């Protein structure tokens, strides 16, 4: 044979495919089971990608409906003559809206509710729809037959029907119909205070438009040709003068679209990364399964080599098998993903500002499919590489090892680098930032290592304790975790990763709720009465004491805006790009107070707090530390305020560090006594209700007696936050469950591959006299321990990760909830046990003789 002959021979692709097909006989189900490991990961990625693509398309089409207009101008004070002239000059179709929060009283049921009133002078939205029931009511207040629209949830909650009455302030109205949905607004926007739509004239009748109330004025614009250059120029011109003077904020449809896209991108990046973890763990699971599969194939490989197959050919036969099965797994995953894509919007619906019409997105499915397949292929390559080292000598001498160890194979390291590169690329593409993407990969790698380390330690500790005092069954069950080809660590890491995600979320949520709920103890106030006018204060206090309540804190509030900082007018600062003052300062209506002491939840960290000041301006004021940077001021700097047309000069004399807590009133700016008492003042009064019944009774009587006073019940607030977190958590739980499902499929695959080995052991034990019940007990102990190690490792690591997260992002303390952790532990152990027992069904009842004969054969 010549050298040329050595190079030309190849049996061809058809033979390769035929051989791969023939060789997989009898093990196709097993191979299919291996690929289940990636089904959930691919499913998660496809679902998220598809939904994301669907939402992008919807946002693109509905960009104007997201805002309901081409342009919105907002102010916390009435627009005024100059602004009216400016807006008239802009032209187009315009609708004005006044928004405020208030109490609503329902005479029919004697119930009351904190609501947000939205008073219109024309149709709204100008783009998109207002869905009402009856439908003919629509977006135009003229069609509401002098009635008001009440949000559907509130109607259900208060058992209201169209035609019922509702009292707002001093006026009573008929409910014309239900508000089902407004374009551009999510269900969550009505969670804290349900929306009630009425006309501006109706709002005037209520008498709720009072000095000091937080009132938001809006003007919506729809232009025939959209935001033309002329309009944009006018807006740009007004930005640094008129808008500064009147504290105007503007938002265009484009701005809103960008904002919604940004928020959704963040949400989907996060969900995608969770799905990606499931895919990654599935990839590792497949690699482990392929490794075991190939171990069973070593003899065939050696024989093929012996009969003349080249190392490349043997590699190709098995690569083809794994690739095809991997593609099938990815296909099943993609189909699952398409299915989930239709389910996922259900929990997300409350957070999305538009209805979702989910459509099949071939691009996203194909991308998820190919990426899933790539991951499987890359991970499978690791065990496949070993094929090249299988010696033909193994045919006659089974003890012959591989030609060279993997760690000395440069291709192995090249492959590891390719895997890391693929993961990093995906991560960076998701997060759109190098640093975040790589940090995710590093964090994920660290978490996997930590989980594996923890699991190893737990397993070691259990083994040690069993050696000393464990029963025979206990020791045998535990030793099963160490059986040859065990994938204990992989299973533990997969399941543990899911537990880590879910339990971290659970603990973060517990800490956030504790922050709110924790205030509701002892004598701390849990009800806040807002918008109490000066002339109502005495009456209100008598009313409270008559009803068995006492005002815990009475806080005067004076609204004002910043007019100048250190002598530079806000207009001038707006034009100066180097001024560095945050945007919100220019339009913010500050709600400041005056008092002669620092509250117990604040500390003076710089300067001197002045309790009383009887001198001339500038008045010494105390600022909260969190506004210093936004205003670019410090001790000694001067701030001029516009108090409803009157200018007041102040100087920063102290800085306070405030421990912001829900339910505790505190203020960014505190004036000393003797300074602004004569300005228009409203009061906030805090009281404590013993329970919900007491606060409800207070609410009902208060609304009738003081219709303009709003009551914020913190217990209700807590319930609302809980409700929102519940919905948000569901989405994340849903995705994290995929990693647990992946872990369980890895477990199922592992049990199936070791099934024959288990049967042999069981037969041996039964031959020696063990009962079927004893064998079942062994299996149960094994899966109990596996589930326990996985859950415990996940929970322990989640405590550390939650602590780090709370400390770095929320500045909150970790709150352990042992009941919840125990429930997680028990659930995971139960799931593992059920999966394990289902896949080992029949092992304990195999007839020993049949197995022994099979062994002989």
């Amino acid at each position, binding site marked *: 044979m010549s050298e040329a002959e050595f190079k030309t021979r190849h*049996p061809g692709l058809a033979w390769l495919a035929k051989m791969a097909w023939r060789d997989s006989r*009898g093990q196709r189900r097993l191979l299919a089971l291996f690929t289940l490991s990636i089904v959930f990961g691919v499913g998660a990625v496809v679902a998220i990608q598809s939904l994301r693509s669907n939402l992008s398309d919807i946002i693109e089409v509905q960009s104007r409906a997201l805002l309901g207009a081409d342009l919105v101008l907002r102010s916390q004070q009435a627009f005024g003559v100059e602004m009216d002239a400016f807006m008239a000059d802009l032209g187009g179709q315009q609708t004005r809206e006044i928004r405020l929060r208030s109490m609503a009283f329902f005479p029919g049921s004697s119930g009351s509710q904190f609501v947000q009133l939205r008073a219109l002078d024309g149709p709204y939205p100008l783009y998109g729809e207002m869905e009402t029931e009856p439908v003919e009511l629509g977006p135009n207040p003229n069609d509401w037959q002098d009635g008001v629209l009440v949000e559907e949830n509130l109607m259900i909650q208060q058992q209201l029907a169209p035609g019922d009455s509702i009292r707002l302030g001093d006026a009573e109205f008929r409910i014309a119909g239900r508000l089902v949905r407004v374009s551009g607004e999510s269900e969550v926007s009505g969670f804290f205070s349900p929306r009630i739509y009425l006309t501006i004239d109706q709002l005037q009748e209520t008498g709720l438009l009072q000095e000091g109330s937080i009132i938001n004025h809006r003007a919506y614009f729809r232009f025939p040709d959209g935001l033309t250059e002329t309009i944009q120029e006018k807006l740009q011109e007004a930005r640094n003068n008129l808008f500064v003077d009147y504290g105007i904020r503007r938002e265009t449809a484009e701005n809103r679209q960008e904002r919604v896209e940004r928020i959704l991108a963040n949400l989907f990046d996060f969900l995608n990364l969770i799905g990606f973890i499931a895919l990654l763990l599935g990839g590792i699971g497949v690699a482990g399964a392929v490794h075991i599969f190939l171990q069973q194939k070593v003899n*065939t490989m050696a024989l093929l080599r*012996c*009969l003349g*197959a080249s190392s490349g*050919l043997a590699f190709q036969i098995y690569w083809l098998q794994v690739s095809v099965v991997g593609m099938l797994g990815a296909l099943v995953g993609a189909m699952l993903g398409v299915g989930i894509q239709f389910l996922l919007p259900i929990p997300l619906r409350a957070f999305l500002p538009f209805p979702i019409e989910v459509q099949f997105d071939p691009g996203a499915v194909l991308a998820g499919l190919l990426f899933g397949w790539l991951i499987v292929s890359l991970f499978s390559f690791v065990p496949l590489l070993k094929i090249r080292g299988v010696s033909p000598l193994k*045919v006659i001498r089974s003890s012959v090892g591989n030609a060279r160890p993997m760690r000395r194979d440069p291709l192995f390291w090249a492959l590891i680098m390719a895997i890391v590169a693929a993961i990093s690329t995906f991560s960076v593409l998701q997060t759109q930032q190098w640093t975040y993407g790589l940090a995710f990969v590093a964090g994920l790698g660290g978490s996997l290592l930590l989980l594996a380390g923890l699991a190893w330690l737990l397993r070691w500790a259990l083994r040690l304790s069993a050696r000393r005092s464990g029963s025979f069954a206990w020791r045998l069950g535990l030793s099963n975790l160490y059986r040859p080809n065990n994938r204990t660590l992989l299973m533990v890491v997969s399941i543990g990763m899911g537990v880590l995600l879910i339990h971290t979320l659970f603990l973060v949520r517990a800490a956030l709720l504790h922050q709110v709920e924790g205030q509701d103890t002892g004598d701390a106030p849990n009800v806040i009465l807002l918008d109490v006018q000066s002339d109502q204060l005495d009456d209100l206090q008598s009313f409270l004491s008559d009803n068995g309540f006492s005002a815990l804190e009475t806080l005067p509030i004076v609204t004002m805006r910043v007019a100048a900082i250190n002598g530079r007018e806000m207009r001038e600062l707006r034009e100066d790009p180097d001024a560095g003052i945050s945007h919100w300062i220019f339009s913010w209506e500050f709600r400041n107070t005056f008092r002669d002491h620092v509250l117990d939840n604040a500390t003076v960290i710089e300067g001197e707090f002045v309790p009383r000041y009887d001198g001339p301006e500038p008045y010494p004021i105390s600022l909260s530390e969190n506004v210093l940077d936004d205003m670019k001021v410090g001790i000694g700097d001067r701030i001029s305020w516009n108090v409803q047309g009157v200018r007041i000069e102040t100087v920063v004399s102290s800085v306070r560090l405030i421990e912001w807590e829900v339910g505790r009133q505190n203020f960014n700016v505190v004036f000393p006594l003797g300074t602004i008492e004569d300005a228009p003042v409203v009061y906030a009064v805090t009281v404590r209700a013993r329970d919900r019944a007491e606060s409800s009774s207070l609410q009902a009587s208060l609304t009738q007696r003081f219709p303009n006073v709003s009551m914020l019940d913190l217990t209700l607030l807590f319930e609302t936050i809980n409700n929102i977190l519940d919905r948000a958590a569901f989405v994340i739980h849903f995705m994290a469950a995929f990693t647990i499902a992946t872990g369980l499929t890895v477990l199922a695959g592992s049990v199936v591959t070791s099934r024959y080995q288990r049967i042999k052991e069981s037969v041996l034990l039964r031959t020696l006299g063990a009962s079927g019940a004893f064998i079942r007990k062994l299996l149960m102990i094994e899966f109990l321990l596996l589930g326990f190690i996985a859950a415990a490792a996940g929970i322990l690591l989640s405590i550390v990760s939650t602590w780090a997260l709370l400390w770095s992002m929320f500045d909150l303390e970790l709150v352990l909830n042992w009941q919840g952790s125990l429930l997680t532990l028990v659930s995971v152990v139960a799931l593992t046990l059920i999966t394990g027992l289902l896949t080992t069904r029949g092992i304990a009842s195999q007839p020993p003789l049949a197995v022994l004969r099979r062994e002989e054969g």
Partner: protein
Amino acid sequence: MTEQSIPAPPILKLEKVIKTYHSGHQSLTVIRDITFTVPPGESVAIIGPSGSGKTTLLGICAGLDQPSEGAIELCGHRLDQLTEDQRAEVRNRKLGFVFQNFQLIPTLTALDNILIPLELRGDRKAREQALDWLAKVGLADRGHHYPVQLSGGEQQRIALARACVGNPEILFADEPTGNLDDETSQQIEDLLFETHARIGNTMVLVTHARELAQRCDRVLRIRSGHLEEVTDHVRS
């Protein structure tokens, strides 16, 4: 050991072959300075006690393993100078193998197992030849059976058909009757030698069985890594 003087060039030639295994700091020499040749058409038996190096020697002769030192020439190729894939090519074109434990691929039918060497060559008439050999070993009606459905003797017949289907110049057999009962062993022995006679190729077999060895033209004994000719051998 003395080399026989034959007119044709040897089909297998080993020269000063040594095989040493290393394990940590220890080394074990299994084959010690072996030199011998096998002329074409000859049947040679290698006998020896367990652990004497028989299988190692067979593996080296067949190009399944490389010697630590020395040269091997098989069918005109210096095996010690070829890559593993090139040796695989030589095995496919020139060699046939019969193993003690049959080594059939369990997921392939009997016919498919026989087909493998020809398919690896890309032979277009593979199926006809395989069917022919299936008939020659007396299993024409068992072609679609899987190994697990065949008896040990039947499996070894299929293995023999697979070894011969490519008309190998040399057939290596490693304890071909080692896993069979006496009656089946006898049948396989007969079949093996009938085939050898029919094809006229060379046969090198490793065996414990004295009766089997005695049917060969020549018997070599390996002991502690050294090879010696059994001079009192009388072919039965």
